[in-house]
């Protein structure tokens, strides 16, 4: 294994933090958003510039400072981290554009604060992606929780307040209450928290302890919204839509699952979990979340809440993939991060665009909206297909890999769960599409002539929708990255 030492990961993390003073002290909104764009592009460029090396099987290392004996703040870019960082930094660019349209379209207050904390959140997300050890990851994880709090509560009203409370209590509470002690106990056993392909915990603890730690980690990373710690996610939908889109479909929740997958593969190691036979309970938890989440999504009328429950279910696919402990399963889980990200962000963008254009939040009020906003609703359709896992979209690929993984691991029950949940996905998405395109518009619902949302809203969602399509035929580099890292962690 080749390693390169470079400060690039550090810079990639810091770029958006350094941009904050510039964003904060900008005189006009245009300048402010200019800086945001610039930071986003630089960040993506930095991340992308590391891609070739990673694709060649190298790892990029950057040690910042040793904060505790044997434990430092350090970054390491490997295939899995690269995958996530690529997705997140690319989508930041798109979301920035979308934010401009959305925030200006609705004339929101405190936009400077919004863009500042957005930048902090992105730093934290990339930090999690590139962290070389659990401590660094925890640091950025907490940073993300706190930085997103002002975003979630952006509206500063009573609803935002209760949701913010719930959000913090779940995410920070679980990470302090569960992850921190689990991390310390791990450190006590191993004296080392570095992620290594075969895990560091192997051979140091008994089965009971490992099981306990595993569940402390899985539930502790409450951002992954594994049931029963999921109810913050629908509550957090009070945030402005770009926030929901990027953070709750991409950065925040994906950081949660990313952390879980990282811990399962990097700290515990697939071999040990297999030896202790701990995958079954994990699979059970994930499957439950998938099914229950999908069922609840069926009963939602608020579009964003429905999407939130859909996210809860989809996130557990990723956990499920990792929990199968088979190469295909892990690959599927990892690729699903990318596929779901593009699909779900499209859906959220659409929901936001509808809200900007019409002010409607509920599905029942969207009858016939497809005729008014064809681009948006077409994109919605594509996103929905991707989430369901239907062939023309990228989502099919990840689900297919997951199914293969289930077969590889001889988990017929899981196979059933996957298929059944796809049916459920179709069951809650298709009525929306049907209502939008095939029902006659009730003009009473729309006072004026509703047009497409502003250009800044429509273009981003079109782009992500197109990418969702493209990913089926050309899933690189995500597929390759996922295959590489899955091969490494499963030792095959």
């Amino acid at each position, binding site marked *: 294994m080749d390693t390169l030492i470079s400060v690039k990961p550090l810079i990639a993390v810091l770029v958006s933090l350094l941009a904050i003073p510039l964003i904060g002290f900008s005189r006009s909104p245009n300048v402010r958003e200019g800086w945001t764009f610039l930071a986003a592009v630089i960040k993506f460029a930095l991340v992308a510039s590391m891609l070739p090396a990673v694709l060649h099987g190298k790892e990029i290392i950057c040690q910042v*400072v040793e904060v505790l004996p044997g434990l*430092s*703040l350090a970054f390491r870019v490997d295939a899995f981290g690269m995958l996530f960082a690529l997705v997140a930094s690319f989508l930041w660019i798109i979301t920035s554009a979308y934010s401009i349209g959305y925030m200006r379209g609705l004339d929101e207050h405190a936009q400077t604060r919004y863009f500042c904390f957005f930048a902090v959140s992105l730093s934290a997300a990339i930090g999690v992606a590139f962290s070389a050890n659990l401590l660094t990851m925890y*640091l950025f994880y907490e*940073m993300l929780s706190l930085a997103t709090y002002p975003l979630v509560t952006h509206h500063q009203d009573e609803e935002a307040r209760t949701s913010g*409370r719930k959000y913090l209590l779940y995410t920070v509470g679980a990470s302090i209450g569960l992850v*921190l002690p689990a991390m310390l106990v791990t450190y006590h056993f191993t004296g080392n928290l570095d992620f290594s392909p075969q895990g560091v915990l192997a051979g140091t603890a008994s089965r009971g302890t490992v099981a306990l730690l595993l569940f402390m980690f899985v539930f502790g990373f409450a951002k992954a919204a594994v049931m029963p710690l999921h109810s913050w996610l629908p509550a957090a939908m009070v945030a402005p839509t770009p926030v929901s889109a990027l953070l709750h479909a991409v950065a925040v929740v994906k950081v949660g699952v990313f952390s879980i997958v990282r811990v399962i593969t990097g700290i515990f190691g697939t071999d040990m979990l297999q030896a202790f036979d701990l995958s079954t309970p994990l699979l059970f938890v994930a499957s439950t979340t998938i099914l229950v989440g999908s069922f609840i999504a069926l009963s939602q009328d608020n579009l964003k809440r429905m999407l939130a429950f859909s996210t809860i279910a989809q996130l557990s696919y990723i956990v499920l993939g990792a929990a199968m402990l088979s190469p295909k399963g892990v690959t599927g889980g990892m690729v699903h991060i990318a596929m779901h990200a593009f699909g779900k962000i499209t859906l959220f963008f659409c929901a936001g665009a509808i809200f900007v254009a019409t002010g409607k939040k509920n599905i029942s009020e969207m009858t016939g909206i497809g005729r008014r906003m064809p681009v948006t609703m077409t994109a919605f359709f594509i996103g929905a297909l991707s989430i369901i896992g239907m062939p023309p979209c990228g989502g099919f690929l990840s689900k297919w890999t997951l199914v293969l993984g289930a077969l590889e691991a001889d988990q017929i029950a899981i196979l059933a769960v996957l298929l059944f949940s796809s049916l459920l996905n179709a069951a809650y998405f298709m009525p929306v599409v049907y209502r939008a395109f095939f029902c006659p518009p009730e003009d009473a619902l729309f006072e004026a002539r509703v047009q497409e949302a502003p250009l800044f809203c429509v273009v981003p969602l079109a782009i992500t929708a197109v990418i969702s399509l493209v990913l089926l035929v050309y899933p690189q580099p995500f597929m390759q990255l996922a295959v590489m890292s899955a091969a490494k962690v499963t030792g095959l």
Partner: protein
Amino acid sequence: MSAHFPGLVIIIPLVAAFLILIGALLDRRLAFPLTALALLGSLLTAIGLLGKVIQTGVVEYHLAGWAPPVGIAYRVDHLNALVLVAVATVAFVNLMGTRELVKGLFEDRLGPFYTLYILLIAGLQGIVVTGDAFNLYVLLEIAALTGYALVGMSEGRAPLSSLNYIFIGTVGASLYLLGVGYLYLVTGTLNMADLAVRLPALYPSKVVVSAFVICLVGLCIKMGFFPMHAWLPNAYSHAPDPVSSLVAPLVTKVMIYVMIRMMLFVFTPAFAFDQMAISEPMVWLAIAAIVAGSFMALSTRRLKRMLTYIIVAEVGYMVGGFWLGNRLGISGAILHIVNDAIMTLCVFLSAAAIISKVGSDAIDDMQGLFKKMPVTMGVFVVAGLSIIGVPPTCGFFSKWYLISGAVAAGQYGFMAALLLSSLINLVLFFRIFEIAYFEPFHDHHGDHGHFVSAVQEAPFEMLVTLVVTAVLLFALGIYAGDIVSQIIDHAIPVGIT
């Protein structure tokens, strides 16, 4: 000159105290610059001393030229050099930050105020460097007396609280003195190093056992450890703001330092941890302190009072960490002395800034402060995060050591208490943030509207010091590893693993 650093670090503020009084008799405006100069000198000396200790190891200084045990000696090792720097930093920073506040509160008695202020610092620094058990008592009293006066000089319930503080403090100090007397009775010496040499032969004696218990009880009273904490919230929350931001970070922490010093370097770990076998009950008391402190903090809606209850819990952190009896736990306790000093300073300073502008310390009156005082509130948030224990602020790292120590010692109860207190701190601080962040968009636009809009940022020097302390919180966090490996590791006796 550097040979005299241990002496100078105390002598500079002490001599300055008298000059300040004389200067202030001439012109009141002289008091502040003189104090600032003296404390800066003391701070620089302390840093120099720390550098010297890191380079060359233990520094001894024989006062009046008499070698111990005949004379009084200062013995500066890594432990006290570190705490010394923390004390000097807090004193200096707080002095700079609270200039305007002090001017407003004590306009007609600036001279006495700064004299008492600097005497308090001289006393605390003396406690930290001294190597003589009785000298420590005298310095303890100097710090205590000046503290009583400063705490009591406010309207409302301050004098009564201060009087209760005197009663409790005097009992604590008397018990300490009695403990030292017991030790003197069986050894005939007062020098700490000499005591440590002569005591092991006497461990079976009941006198040593009672000396140990009496000392410990006395110190626990002075530091406000859980069952004896009742004086602390009253005294600290009713004190004038510039005083509570000085006393709250320093006094309890220095007392914890004294406990560590006595237990490790006078009674030796073998006696304190192994023979006395009180680690277990002490840790349980610490757990009780943490839990009780946290819940009491939840029950109040006054800012300063809440912060003082947090101090009660933090004392539990440090005492519990120390009595875990392993290297990790003790490192955590020592690190937390430094971190908590800065943390408490930061949070009390920002509270002082807020209270002076808002005119009330009720949490409910803090509506809309994020808009009105963004910098102050920003620092307050950083301090809050540090107290909660969010990386990379320093509070996380000391908590890390404490919890690691708890895991290594198998004290899972202590670990649970620390986590619980983190969670409660989270609730406590976000309760405030919520009010400061959400409230103005409610119905307070009417009568309160013009009142709130009169609130504005704290004075410039206050802001600068606030930002400096906030930066310090991060710096201490990032360099926690270095502090531990370069300084604290050498401070703990080798025998402790």
